[in-house]
């Protein structure tokens, strides 16, 4: 029996005993839960897949089905129609939905810092924000555009915004001078198309006053009210999943690659490796293993101001309505 297999069997057993001793919960309470993710399987969702694969959800007494996202899957529709109980959203987008009237609540702010970036080639002579004047900047439509546009307007930049839908190719070919990417995703793609970090100028939105965290776990208010305890267990099990993934990255990557292959998504190990490492920087920005799912009112207000300013929303939903501290990681 290979050590890997041993590990696969042994560790769950340890977990089982550990949690059996600490958390004697009602095992009869195996409520089926459906989670829809905002994109296709990738390391961005390592915690969920790990928790499910290793049976952590089961230990917590919940039966979780994961509905993978993708270009043809609308998370909000799934939640609205009840196809899924929980879904992951960017904070900004969820706020917009709530402002539109959908009674979503944020029960866990998993991402702790912004991963949004603008990238330019040094050969375009862009080193500071002011160098962007007169240049073409590619920005993803809809979900990703609020902050970059706010950045442009704040810095009073005269740029040509080129809407992009598919990726960084236009940037690589020189069709745009700047492009907007996620730190854990497209930035690495640029690096692995042959650009060295020292050939690029990076603008982290978090450095320019836009440190808005992204991924969070949401559900309908009614879902939470119906079984707050299950929500709590779900979140705590998820965070255990993240913990395991960070402590055993190569095992987590194996799980993710398996999921990707199952969904016929091209699975690139180097890319997933980078993504998992950056997720760790985003979920545990201070290092260590002190998780937090707390969303502060200041952060919410700051983010809300951006949306109000660009008229995406007319009013900001109340903080207490929007965010519910659920579980032990939500303690301030």
């Amino acid at each position, binding site marked *: 029996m290979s050590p890997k297999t041993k590990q696969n069997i042994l560790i769950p057993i340890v977990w089982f005993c550990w949690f059996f001793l600490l958390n004697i919960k009602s095992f009869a309470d195996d409520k089926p839960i459906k989670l829809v993710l905002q994109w296709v399987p990738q390391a961005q969702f390592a915690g969920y897949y790990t928790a499910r694969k290793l049976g952590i959800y089961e230990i917590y007494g919940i039966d979780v089905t994961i509905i993978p996202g993708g270009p043809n899957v609308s998370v909000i529709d799934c939640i609205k129609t009840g196809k899924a109980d929980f879904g992951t959203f960017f904070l900004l987008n969820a706020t917009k939905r709530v402002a539109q009237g959908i009674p979503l609540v944020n029960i866990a702010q998993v991402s702790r810092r912004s991963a949004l970036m603008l990238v330019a080639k040094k050969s375009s002579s862009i080193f500071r924000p002011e160098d962007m004047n007169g240049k073409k900047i590619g920005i993803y439509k809809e979900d990703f555009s609020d902050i970059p546009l706010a950045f442009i307007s704040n810095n009073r930049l005269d740029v040509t915004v080129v809407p992009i839908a*598919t990726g960084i190719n236009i940037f690589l070919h020189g069709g745009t001078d700047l492009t907007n990417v996620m730190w854990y995703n497209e930035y690495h793609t640029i690096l*692995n198309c*042959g650009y060295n970090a020292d050939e690029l100028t990076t603008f982290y939105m978090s450095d320019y006053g836009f440190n808005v965290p992204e991924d969070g776990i949401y559900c309908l208010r009614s879902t939470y009210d119906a079984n707050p305890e299950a929500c709590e267990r779900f979140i705590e099990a998820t965070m255990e999943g993240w913990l395991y993934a960070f402590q055993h990255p190569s095992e987590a990557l194996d799980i993710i690659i398996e999921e990707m292959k199952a969904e016929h998504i091209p*699975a*690139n*190990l*180097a*890319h997933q*490796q980078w993504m998992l490492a950056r997720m760790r920087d985003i979920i545990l920005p201070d290092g260590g293993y002190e998780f937090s799912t707390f969303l502060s009112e200041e952060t919410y207000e700051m983010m809300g101001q951006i949306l109000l300013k660009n008229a995406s929303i007319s009013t900001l939903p109340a903080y207490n309505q929007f965010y519910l501290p659920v579980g032990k990681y939500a303690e301030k």
Partner: protein
Amino acid sequence: MLKNRSLRFKLSAFILTGTILVAAVLFSYYYSVSRKLILESALTNARHLTMETVNSVENVFRSTAKIPENLVYVFETGITDEKALYRFMETVVKNNTELFGSAIAFEPGAMVPGVERFAPYFYKNNGQIVYSNLSDPAYNYHLQDWYQIPKELNKPIWSEPYFDEGGGDIIMATYSVPFRWPNDGVNENKFRGIITIDISLVWLKQVFEELSIYETGYGFLLSQSGKFLVHPDPDNVMNASIFDIAELQQDEKLRELGRKMVRGQTGFMNIIEPVTGQEVYLCFAPFPSSGYSMGIVIPTAELFAGLTRLNRNVAIIAVLGLLALFGVISLISGRITEPIRRLSGATTLIGQGDFNAVLPKIDTNDEIGQLMRSFETMQIALAEYIENLKKTTADKEKIEGELRIAHDIQMSIIPRTFPPFPDRSDVDIYGILESAKAVGGDLYDFFLLDENRLGAAIGDVSGKGVPASLFMAVTRTLLRAKSMNMKNASPGKIVTSMDIDLCTENDASMFVTFFYFILNLKTGELEYCNAGHNPPFVLDEDGEITAIDTVHGFPLGVMEAEPYETGKIKIRPGTRIVLYTDGVTEAENEARELFKEKRLLETLKLMKDVQDPKEISLAVKKAVKEFTLEAEQSDDLTMLVINYLGENYTSK
């Protein structure tokens, strides 16, 4: 370390070492040159293969690219209505076998006013030409790379390869060419849309799979972004880029290679292949029209397999050869040095005294043979020499023996009994004669001529050794004979007679200094004759010292000259007469100083009250000895002291 080793070992070791060094240098040179040649040849072949591949692929890309370019031309000048457009497109797709499909995508309202999206697309499906409009808002072709990139760059572009929508493993690529409004005063040559053609890249894959690069070599193909389009490992195809592999392997060199290829460079690189870990050479070149690039991988091990085998065989042969060489050298040098060893053994025996030790027989004419013959000669000569030496030594011992006898004889003819006349109270005598050599030339003598007369003489023959002693013997014999014969003759007459005899037949020019006196013991009258001898000293009864320093003539034997005269003195009882030879006065110490008369006189002064001639003699001898100390005795030490006491001597 080498000092104590045998010749055989040294020879073998040095020759072997030299040979090994020469062989090693040769081998390394040959190996490195062979390697270089093989490598150059392989790389040249690789480059040719690469270029051939690039050329043939480029031909396809370029000819394919011509299609939409021609379309653009035709469209810009000719076609104005929708129907004509459809017919045209359908024909194009149908008639060009390599095309999979073709589309014309317009800017919003650029074909049909008010229509946001209009993009007729014709493609082949199951042998039929199918029409579709890519106007789906969800698709939003305006934001697709194949539209957006050539639009923004304003130039034709090949897309990144992608998988066909219909599923399956067919890799496709699209060539997009932007077209513009005609400059008809209305639309000012503005951008109007994109014409595309889709082709499958399966043929490209086949080209690569058919590349024959040794047995384990292969070719790979990268897209514009470095993604693998063709690779032995299917997991990488359309999935990972060369940079991803480099990142996983932490391989800087591989990343660098990727950058070079993606930037359209041509060249060679020597790297370690990521997964297998084996050393390979890589030849890479771009496909200029599409921006893709290819590489050919040649495993070094396979490349040099033949050479490696050759090396191994050569090494084995060399080692065996060297071992054999070592054996041969060892044998030969052993054979050469063996006679030397035997010779050495025989020589040791000779050195221990066995002059008849048998030398090894060596008949060769080389250096060893010559050495052997020299040794034989030396051995014989040595044996002879030793024989002669033995004989000479024996002879010498005989002579020395005879000399000892001669010494004894000589000593016996000199009176040695003291006191000589114990019954007489009127005279006492003591004499010393110590020869420097075994036999010497000094003499003294005394005898009673009659009742009342004493004759005494001292003499010093010129020279030393046997000749002098013989001459001394003759002189003494003559003295006695003449004295006896000429009983009443004066000392002068006797000495004259002696001289005549001694001068006869004296070729050797030997002479003897001689002093002879006759003392009348009753009267104290003394007659003397001095033939060239040191004047004796006289210590009278009062202790006054005088010398009898009249010299009457030459030493005896010089030449017959005038007759010798006789001198006369009278002495009183208590007088001591000291006769000596120059062995006393010319005794040398180590500083080569002479004893001299002065010291003799001083010593005699001390003896002024001593009557005993023995005491006086010994005192002088002691003084001389104390003077000469360690110096070698150069001359005979001879003294004769006569103490005249007279008839009725009474000491004072």
